[in-house]
């Protein structure tokens, strides 16, 4: 075997490898002259082999390699240790510009060949640049973090502090040294070791990457009692791993301001109530003598006619007409002040529209004809009846017709009544069209404002207070409709009243429980406070938009206000926010299913009492009942059944009453008086049996129960209520004058919410306890009088 070709093969092979390497390589002999370079070297430095080979390394290019440090490495380090690593060379190379090169050197001995030094170069310019960029970004981020005026903490996965921002150190008066690398709970003498924060960080954060506006009230040693709003974001921060940014906003002042606003609002509401009460009394005082003026002048007119004293008649008519006018004005002012004070009631009744129109027409006809106008009545054949406040509908029509009569001369006034279907609901539409003076755009704008007539001269010319239109509009709006106007200046006007054919029972807003809920109430994501739920709010939780829409319409028709959620989480949030009177819950939902939602609802003390109606495909009532559902309905939903279930949880005449059960009439009377002072509606029963009977017609919101009673005692009553599916959620408060035996306590346990002792405290203390109970159970109350 010839050895030579074999050696050549290996050398060729080595050269191939050297040329394949993408890093530039230089092979030097021990005199530091270039033996060879690889293709990557020539390509990188854009030089040729001729310019390179046999040259001393220091002479390459324009002496660009002639660097003292490199000399040391090549001349001192290599001869002794044969290797050096990662020598960084920054240099402006003639053909390729400024570069950062990382040099590695090896001295190799290849068989019989003389030793060579391999110099490998790595171009790290880009890497250095991006590292510098990254450092700049980090500094930039830190600058931002420090500029933010909210305290921020950056925690790692184990809840240790990576860093805080300047605001954090400043606000909590701590130094970075006392803070960094410590567990959050250990900071500042454990001032962050708060149960609510632990729940947040250990239970909520791991399952979601973000949370908003967690309210934390805590007595911080350095700051005193503060309310903090916490926001968190989880971040994936490269080699830092998962980080948690915890932002804190001190809302103590804001909360205080909000409380003050609420107080001021309550004060102004109280003042407004005083005003309206004054007005109500005042107008009563004004009306009594006016009634006498109107009545006696009317009588005298009759007598004058009988005695043929015609010369008196016209003067008596003037007294009478002026008295009536003044009475009408006082009534308008009273109505308006009642509306403003929220005291105007809607009295719904079903009535025949034709009869109403005939009645209004006969009343208004003399007035229309006074200005030589013609009254035309047009009505749909199928007009039928409507359910609304008849007095207010009549007054609205009368106001618009008398305006039309007032502003029209030698023309016509048309009342058109029609029944129309809009958005799936039936509406009654009245149009009052005149051929009178009409209105321009500017006048239309001012038309419906209180005490405003089209212009001041109108008052002089046509009279009136300017309250009629404002009242008409308010009446229509109270009934869920409105009044609109279309007019051409000089050509007449058309006023259109649209009212639902079946007006819904008005919703009643309760403000009484607002305060107690304000402190522990979570805020909604958009930062608005949860609105107090009207007493007719039903929450629909269903993932199917069609089903939600159907339920919403159906509930609206039944007089409920429906709010809906498309999944369990949203449902739970809305339930807390709205405190609805009932919840309908679909079982089959993606994510959190109906059963889990039900369990969550029933394990939350604030939501536990809300009746939940399960909407299920499968008839599995036992499971729902076991979990605490109030009732269930199978799909497809039978509306009649759902309607009858819902009616059990709403009261026809809100607010639902408080039921007082006591056999002693004076006790009932004094408690009733006290509760009514608190703005509650009160129902009474003298024993358990009477109470059960009365509960069939009206479900109370809270029961005060005496134990010792004839016919049916309190214990048996509580038994009966608690085993009744529709009643078992009604809170019962026992008010008793005797000490309970162990057996009695056992029987009451779990049945009643609170036991108050009549004998252990004074009457005032007992009443205070009762008032506290009202607040605890958020009993719907009208404003206290």
């Amino acid at each position, binding site marked *: 075997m010839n050895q030579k070709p074999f050696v050549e093969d290996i050398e060729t092979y080595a050269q191939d490898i050297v040329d394949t390497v993408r890093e530039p390589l230089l092979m030097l002999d021990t005199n530091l002259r270039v033996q060879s370079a690889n293709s990557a070297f020539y390509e990188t430095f854009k030089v040729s082999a001729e310019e390179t080979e046999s040259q001393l390394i220091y002479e390459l290019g324009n002496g660009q390699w002639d660097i003292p440090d490199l000399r040391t490495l090549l001349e001192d380090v290599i001869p002794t240790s044969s290797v050096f690593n990662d020598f960084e060379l920054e240099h402006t190379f003639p053909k390729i510009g400024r570069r950062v090169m990382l040099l590695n050197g090896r001295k190799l001995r290849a068989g019989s060949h003389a030793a060579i030094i391999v110099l490998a170069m790595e171009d790290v310019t880009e890497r250095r640049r991006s590292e510098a960029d990254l450092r700049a970004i980090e500094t930039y981020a830190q600058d931002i973090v420090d500029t933010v005026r909210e305290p921020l903490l950056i925690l790692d996965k184990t809840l240790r502090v990576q860093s805080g921002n300047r605001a954090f150190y400043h606000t909590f008066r701590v130094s970075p040294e006392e803070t960094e690398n410590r567990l959050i709970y250990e900071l500042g003498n454990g001032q962050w070791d708060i149960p609510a924060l632990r729940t947040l960080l250990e239970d909520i954060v791991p399952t979601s990457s973000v949370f908003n506006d967690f309210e934390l009230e805590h007595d911080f040693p350095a700051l005193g009692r503060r309310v903090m709003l916490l926001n968190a974001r989880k971040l994936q921060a490269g080699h830092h791993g998962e980080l948690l940014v915890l932002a804190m906003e001190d809302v103590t002042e804001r909360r205080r301001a909000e409380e003050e606003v609420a107080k001021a609002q309550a004060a102004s509401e109280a003042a407004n109530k005083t005003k309206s009460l004054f007005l109500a009394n005042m107008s009563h005082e004004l009306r009594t003598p006016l009634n006498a003026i109107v009545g006696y002048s009317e009588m005298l007119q009759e007598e004058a006619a009988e005695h043929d004293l015609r010369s008196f008649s016209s003067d008596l008519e003037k007294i009478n007409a002026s008295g009536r006018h003044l*009475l009408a004005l006082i009534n308008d002012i009273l109505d308006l002040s009642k509306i403003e004070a929220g005291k105007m*009631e809607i009295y719904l009744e079903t009535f025949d529209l034709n009869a109403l129109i005939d009645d209004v027409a006969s009343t208004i006809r003399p007035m229309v004809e006074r200005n030589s106008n013609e009254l035309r009545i047009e009505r749909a054949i199928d007009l039928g009846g409507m359910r609304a406040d008849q007095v207010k509908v009549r007054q609205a029509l009368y106001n618009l017709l008398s305006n039309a009569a007032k502003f029209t001369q030698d023309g016509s006034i048309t009342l058109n009544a029609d029944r129309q279907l809009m958005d799936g609901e039936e509406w009654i539409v009245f149009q009052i069209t005149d051929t009178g003076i009409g209105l321009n755009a500017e006048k239309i704008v001012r038309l419906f404002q209180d005490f405003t007539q089209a212009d001041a001269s109108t008052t002089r010319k046509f009279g009136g207070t300017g309250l009629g239109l404002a009242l008409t509009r308010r009446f229509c709006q109270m009934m869920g409709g409105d009044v609109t106007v279309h007019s051409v200046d000089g050509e007449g006007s058309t006023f259109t009243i649209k009212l639902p054919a079946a007006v819904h029972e008005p919703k009643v807003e309760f403000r009484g429980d607002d305060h107690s809920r304000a402190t522990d109430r979570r805020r909604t994501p958009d930062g608005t406070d949860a609105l107090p739920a009207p007493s007719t709010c039903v929450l629909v939780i269903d993932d199917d938009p069609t089903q939600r829409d159907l339920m919403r319409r159906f509930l609206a028709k039944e007089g409920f206000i429906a709010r809906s959620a498309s999944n369990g989480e949203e449902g739970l949030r809305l339930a807390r926010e709205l405190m609805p009177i009932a919840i309908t819950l679909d079982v089959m939902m993606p994510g959190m299913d109906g059963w889990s939602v039900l369990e969550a609802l029933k394990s939350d003390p604030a939501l536990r009492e809300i009746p939940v109606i399960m909407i299920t495909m499968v008839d599995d009532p036992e499971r729902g009942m076991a979990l605490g559902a109030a009732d269930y309905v199978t799909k497809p939903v039978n509306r009649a059944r759902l309607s009858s279930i819902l009616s059990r949880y709403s009261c026809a005449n809100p607010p639902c009453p408080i039921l007082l059960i006591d056999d002693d009439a004076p006790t009932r009377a004094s408690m009733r008086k006290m509760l009514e002072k608190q703005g509650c509606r009160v129902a009474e029963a003298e024993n358990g049996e009477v109470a059960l009977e009365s509960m069939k017609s009206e479900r109370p919101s809270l029961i005060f129960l005496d134990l010792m009673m004839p016919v049916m005692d309190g214990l048996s009553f509580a038994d009966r209520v608690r085993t009744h599916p529709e009643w078992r959620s009604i809170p019962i408060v026992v008010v008793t004058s005797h000490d309970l035996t162990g057996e009695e306590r056992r029987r009451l346990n779990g049945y009643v919410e609170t036991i108050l002792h009549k004998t252990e405290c004074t009457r005032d203390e007992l009443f205070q306890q009762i008032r506290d109970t009202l607040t605890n159970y958020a009993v719907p109350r009208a404003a206290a009088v």
Partner: protein
Amino acid sequence: MPRILLVEDNEMNRDMLSRRLQRRGYEVVLAVDGQEGVELAQSDQPDLILMDMSLPVIDGWEATRALKAAAGTRHIPVIALTAHAMSTDRDKALEAGCDDYDTKPIELQRLLGKMEALLGRALPENSGSQEPT
């Protein structure tokens, strides 16, 4: 002619309404409070009672309840006279057992219509419209 018991505490209202009713031929008995109203209803047995609601001693609602609870007066129709369109008063009046209501200020024609309707029902022999024409 039908005898009407008017229970009204306001002197002018009492005077006005009674004179106007008398002129139309009714016999009018007057009471100034609820207690007196109940007593006069029992002793005088009127054909119809016009009852103001806000009365001294016992109010109109309670007086009506007492009248409707007693066998001797249960059959006498009661018209409640309530203040200007107070629906709560109106409801309370009907709950207390009133047969009808009218609002003050009195519109005589409207009130007479309601009275005649009730008298026609309560005293068919007096109505005169029983015979077919």
